[in-house]
């Protein structure tokens, strides 16, 4: 029973990493191929790699955080406020990581032209 709740909560954390990581993978390939200036190209690829690492961190909350939350869920009489408080660090971490990704995305924009960006990041299909 409690595991059902853990599962239902965990699915709500984080961008869907596979799709975002795939997008960054493709962007790295495009940047390596299409950006002629070596300095801009290298800076962009390095930044994209850091973005990728951050997305992967979002997809894997630290084990101690999850364990602490699960331990609380195991307690039969854990209260709703206690449970909400235990979720807060997980939530805050996700928000911070997402803010970091956006900050890197804004920096990446300074390395690429609008045309290069359009090739690196086409809108998702559908």
């Amino acid at each position, binding site marked *: 029973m409690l595991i059902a709740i853990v599962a239902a909560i965990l699915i709500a954390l984080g961008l869907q990493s596979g799709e*975002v990581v795939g997008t960054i*993978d493709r962007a790295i390939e495009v940047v390596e191929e299409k950006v002629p200036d070596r300095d801009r190209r290298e800076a962009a690829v390095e930044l994209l790699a850091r973005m990728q690492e951050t997305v*992967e961190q979002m997809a894997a909350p630290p084990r101690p955080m999850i364990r602490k939350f699960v331990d609380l869920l195991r307690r039969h009489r854990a209260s709703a406020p206690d449970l909400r408080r235990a979720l807060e660090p997980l939530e805050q971490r996700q928000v911070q990581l997402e803010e970091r990704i956006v900050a890197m995305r804004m920096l990446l924009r300074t390395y690429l032209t609008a045309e290069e960006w359009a090739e690196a990041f086409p809108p998702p299909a559908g």
Partner: protein
Amino acid sequence: MLHPVDPRGPAQGCVVILALAGCLFLGGCRSDQQAVEPPSDADRLVEEIRRVVPASDRADDLVAIVVRIETLQARQLDAEAEYTRRWLVLNADYDATASDFESLREARTTRRKTYFDTLTNLRVEAAALLTTEEWRRLESARGRVRDSILGS
């Protein structure tokens, strides 16, 4: 090992947390979205409740909670997929600003808070329907799965 699947693996669009959720919820480890709600596994969870909780009215209420959780979870999965899609659309716009991303995230945070609040309330409701012994038996039945994921 916390990651049941490699996020860069062959299953395109695979969600690591979703896979973890599938493992925790249903006791299996698969890498696709269907892992969360195959009827046979949901039925197993219901059977487990029926076996552990002898009073049928309480068991009925617990099963109703499981169904509600499943419904909420399915809706949340859809909402998360839509959030990721909208995030990628915004990212594709060269002129999108940090504040555009923040607006998108704020709307999602509000929705997610409602989801978490509902879930925690359902959890407390479920706990109130169970004796300590029933709670322990239901929990231990899932312990092996949990420990295999979280490590002992």
